[in-house]
């Protein structure tokens, strides 16, 4: 129970990775707000996990402010903010419309900005207890190296990486730690969409063969689960990581530790 007594808010809290984080935080004793567009989120089935749902579009300033007002009214502080809401457009820049580009940045970058901006007063309040507050953004290994046909997504994640360092720099003195988790291939609805996508994914190929091939490229011979990410987020959220800030934590089963694996 590493998060006993802590108040947490997870955006994208009903999505693939966000939901696993919410569940883990609950198990660790935190009080958790799961913010998402809809109560069901991106998953077909949502079982009641005991979290407090907040209907919110992270790109909408009014809704974000309302969410933080609710946290303020209920608890007066926020110890943990996880910016896990994100979308991806599976296209090259040539095929990406301005609307799609703007929506990618609105959710992935502006959403991180807005949610953090309005959470900061609550997090400063939490930090007064003597333990640091923890803000965790979602970058991606795609912020370092590119997957084909994911141009806007790659760019938004690079922006989140830089924003993470900037926020760590600005708010460290206030007792707020800021880190980003950068997942590799994680089994989520987003990944399955990528596998079956027209532009970059399977392109009509056999999805089982494709999935196995993807597993085989990883040094650990598997791609990750949302729970793998939740394990790291839980550590970053807890006081165990009190000296960790400003870092980009790549969690990818060793994928990016290796040079391209030529099939010799």
């Amino acid at each position, binding site marked *: 129970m590493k998060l006993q007594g802590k108040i947490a808010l997870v955006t994208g809290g009903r999505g693939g990775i966000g939901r696993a984080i919410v569940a883990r935080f609950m198990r660790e004793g935190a009080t958790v707000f799961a913010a998402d567009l809809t109560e069901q989120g991106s998953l077909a089935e949502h079982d009641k996990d005991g979290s407090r749902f907040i209907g919110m579009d992270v790109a909408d300033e009014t809704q974000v402010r309302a969410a933080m007002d609710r946290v303020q009214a209920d608890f007066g502080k926020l110890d943990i903010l996880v910016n896990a809401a994100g979308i991806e457009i599976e296209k090259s820049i040539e095929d990406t419309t301005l609307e799609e580009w703007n929506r990618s940045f609105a959710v992935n970058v502006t959403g991180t900005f807005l949610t953090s901006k309005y959470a900061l007063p609550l997090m400063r309040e939490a930090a007064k207890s003597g333990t640091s507050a923890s803000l965790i953004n979602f970058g991606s*290994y*795609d912020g370092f*190296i*590119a*997957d*084909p046909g994911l141009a806007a997504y790659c760019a938004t994640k690079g922006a989140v990486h830089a924003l993470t360092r900037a926020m760590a720099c600005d708010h460290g003195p206030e007792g707020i730690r800021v880190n980003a988790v950068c997942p590799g*291939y994680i089994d989520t609805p987003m990944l399955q969409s*990528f*596998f079956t996508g027209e532009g*970059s*994914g*399977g*392109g009509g*190929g056999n999805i089982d*063969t*494709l999935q196995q*091939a*993807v597993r085989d*490229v990883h040094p650990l011979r598997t791609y990750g689960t949302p729970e793998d990410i939740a394990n790291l987020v839980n550590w970053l959220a807890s006081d165990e990581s009190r000296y960790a800030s400003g870092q980009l934590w790549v969690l990818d089963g060793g*994928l*990016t*530790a*290796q*040079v*391209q*694996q*030529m*099939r*010799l």
Partner: protein
Amino acid sequence: MDNHTAIVTGGSRGIGRAIVARLVADGANVVTCGRGPAPDDLVEGAVWVQADVSMTADADRLIHEANTRFGRVTLLVNNAGVQVEKTVAESNDDDWNLVMNVNCKGVFNMCRAALSDMAEEGGNIINIGSISGMVADPSMALYNASKAFVHGLTRSIAVDHGPAVRCNAIRPGWIMTEMAEDGFALANDPDKAMADALARHPVGRMGKPEDIANMVAWLASDQSAYVSGTCFTVDGGMTAASPLNPGLF
């Protein structure tokens, strides 16, 4: 590069030979070396000195010969390197000594010998690192580690010996040398292996030794006067792309 005296280690073949050829073409006086006698196809105009960079005395002698013959060395290109294709578990002491003596101590020896003048009089050092010093090639453990050493030493020299000395490194990706061609020849299906390798390169081809020589020429020139302590990747975009390009499967 007129009036420049350059040393390029390991200039008998591959990337080193292309660097020698480019610097000679650009007007530099070039001394190159290797552990054996002068190769038959030594670049015309280059001077060969038989020397093993892992031997401190050889490194000193190489600098001395270049100084005596052409005047003070103004450019050092540390290209000489060896690789042993093994994991840590497979590597023995001889493997360690070979890789570390040539790839690490050799670069250190040459830099130290060159800096005896350069630290005061100025100069330019270019080290050949590798993308493998950033991300791992399988079964190349000691080589990968030795190249990370080269990157670290590059930054240290830039920090410690600026402004007199500029020091940068180049990290080549897959460059088609005799060494790489042997690798493809051994593949189960060489044509398929080559097609796969090409698909991983955004520029659509493998590297040529001249691609690295082009970067050396730029880093050796005044065009790069404000560049120091940096490691440049020249790999046709390979390490910018995810190894998981589903289109390949």
